[in-house]
């Protein structure tokens, strides 16, 4: 056997187990999910073909879908906008040269490793109305008490607060890495021209880390749009109080694993996938247009 053929055979063998897993646990489920979205199926009786009925119900006859869509949009915006603002500032601060800055970075990035479930339990304790830390501290300022997880509106605010706490370190890590790639000489030149620090940040740093910003936005949209763990644990699994935190992830879980309506849940999953794809494409277009203008 020639070395080239030997290498080709080895290549196929090395990929085979991985490809097998991809086919069984990814490609087959993908196709099967699409098939299910046109069926009515509770796992115990044979599936029944219903055409596009699942999708039609979703868009025309299920008021909860619109509520979930609205809540998810609010949650996504309420997570991403504060995350971007805070992490831009945080990355700018952490980008300085100072003693012990490495230790500060390590501490500030701790939430990266912490699981959403544990943090949701811990934040419940922080949000506790009667004796939670947040209301106690607001009390010192003469404010509150705020019904954090009890009032539907405030429950969404609470959810966003925890989500921001969790995603700021991620965004900061990515933005900081990008900022470290901005050449020092640009800043020096601008300083000589008399540009203030804020001015230099807005006109030099931010445009140069556009790519990283766009990356952070895309990943954060994908994560926020599918939020489940945090919501399930923080507000009790039903998207309550009332429908205050009823997001698409919770709706999907309920229809599949509580109501055993697998066809309907699969249709919902594909609608979510389609919206996510559209948002990602729009975002990439927008980012490209921005880069052309600048």
């Amino acid at each position: 056997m020639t070395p080239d053929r030997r290498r080709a055979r080895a290549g196929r063998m090395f990929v085979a187990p991985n490809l097998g897993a991809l086919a069984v646990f990814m490609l087959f489920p993908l196709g099967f999910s699409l098939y299910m979205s046109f069926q009515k199926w509770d796992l115990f009786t044979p599936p029944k073909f219903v055409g596009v009925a699942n999708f039609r119900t979703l868009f025309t006859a299920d008021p909860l879908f619109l509520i979930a869509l609205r809540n998810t949009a609010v949650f996504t915006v309420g997570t991403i906008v504060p995350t971007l603002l805070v992490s831009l500032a945080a990355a700018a601060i952490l980008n300085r040269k100072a003693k012990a800055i490495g230790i500060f970075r390590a501490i500030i990035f701790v939430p990266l490793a912490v699981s959403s479930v544990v943090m949701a339990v811990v934040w419940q304790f922080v949000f506790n109305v009667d004796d939670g830390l947040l209301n106690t501290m607001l009390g010192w300022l003469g404010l509150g008490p705020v019904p954090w997880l009890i009032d539907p509106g405030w429950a969404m605010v609470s959810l966003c607060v925890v989500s921001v706490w969790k995603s700021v370190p991620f965004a900061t890590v990515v933005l900081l890495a990008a900022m470290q790639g901005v050449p020092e000489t640009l800043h020096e030149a601008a300083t000589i021209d008399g540009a203030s620090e804020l001015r230099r940040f807005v006109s030099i740093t931010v445009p140069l880390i556009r790519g990283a910003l766009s990356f952070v936005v895309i990943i954060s949209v994908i994560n926020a749009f599918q939020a489940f763990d945090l919501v399930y644990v923080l507000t009790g699994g039903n998207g309550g109080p009332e429908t205050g935190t009823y997001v698409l992830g919770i709706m999907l879980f309920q229809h599949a694993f509580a109501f055993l309506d697998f066809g309907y849940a699969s249709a919902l999953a594909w609608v979510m996938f389609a919206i996510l794809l559209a948002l990602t494409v729009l975002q990439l277009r927008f980012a490209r247009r921005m880069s052309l203008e600048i």
Partner: protein
Amino acid sequence: MSGPTERVIKRSVVRAVALYAALIGMAWCALFPILWALSGSLKTEPGIAEPNLFPAHPQWSNYARVFSLMPFWRMLGNTVLYACCVTLGQVFFCSLAGYAFARLRFRGRDTLFVLYLATLMVPLTVTVIPQFILMRAFGWTDTPWAMIVPGLFGSAFGTYLMRQFFLTLPTDLEEAAVLDGCSPWQIYWRILLPHIRPAVMVLAVLTWVNVWNDFLWPLVMIQRRDIATLTLGLVWMQGQYVSRWPVLMAASILILLPLLGVYGFAQRAFVRGITLTGFGGR
């Protein structure tokens, strides 16, 4: 002394103080929920309302109660077992396939790689339901197999990551070995794998933390306490002992500690992995 120099020194002192104040403020924001949980885990149930960070009489017995209220060690063992199996499998099969995609030419390779990239776009929400039905068809629901096998043979994400690292290695490393008559396996195992140890570390840490923190999959797969993971155990406990904060916080801290240990040990690899992949932004 000249005035301007003094002013410059004063300004740089003010700036340094402001910088450290900002850093300390940020560190506090990142840590206060965890510190508050630690403090709460050492308080008594009636004393939970006191807003002091350091309880006067730390109640270590809360931790002992966690062990009696949930099978903590069992769940810890399960979680470690699942995390280790999946991590080892991911690292091995993804690096093997990543090497093939980067260096070994075979027909259909590039088409196949595009397929891998395309599956990266598929969100978890679409695959979780059919995967659940698949596990049910295999008879694996409520068994450890459901927690281990789907992740054991690698993933598109890991393969992509490893391929990118293999591409950065110089080809002459390999050419010399080919001339010496090494087989592709020997080249992978003896020569290239030692060179991409940092990449292996990145993938291993990301996978380990991800399995440790996973919640949706164990939630739909597992009902039995004796094969449950720690996150699942915590949520069950939260449902059973509503508002019994000291015990809940003690359990949370116990679940956090091994993670913080891994983070402290592999912080660089972890942060690097997140910068490269956006993984773990959840």
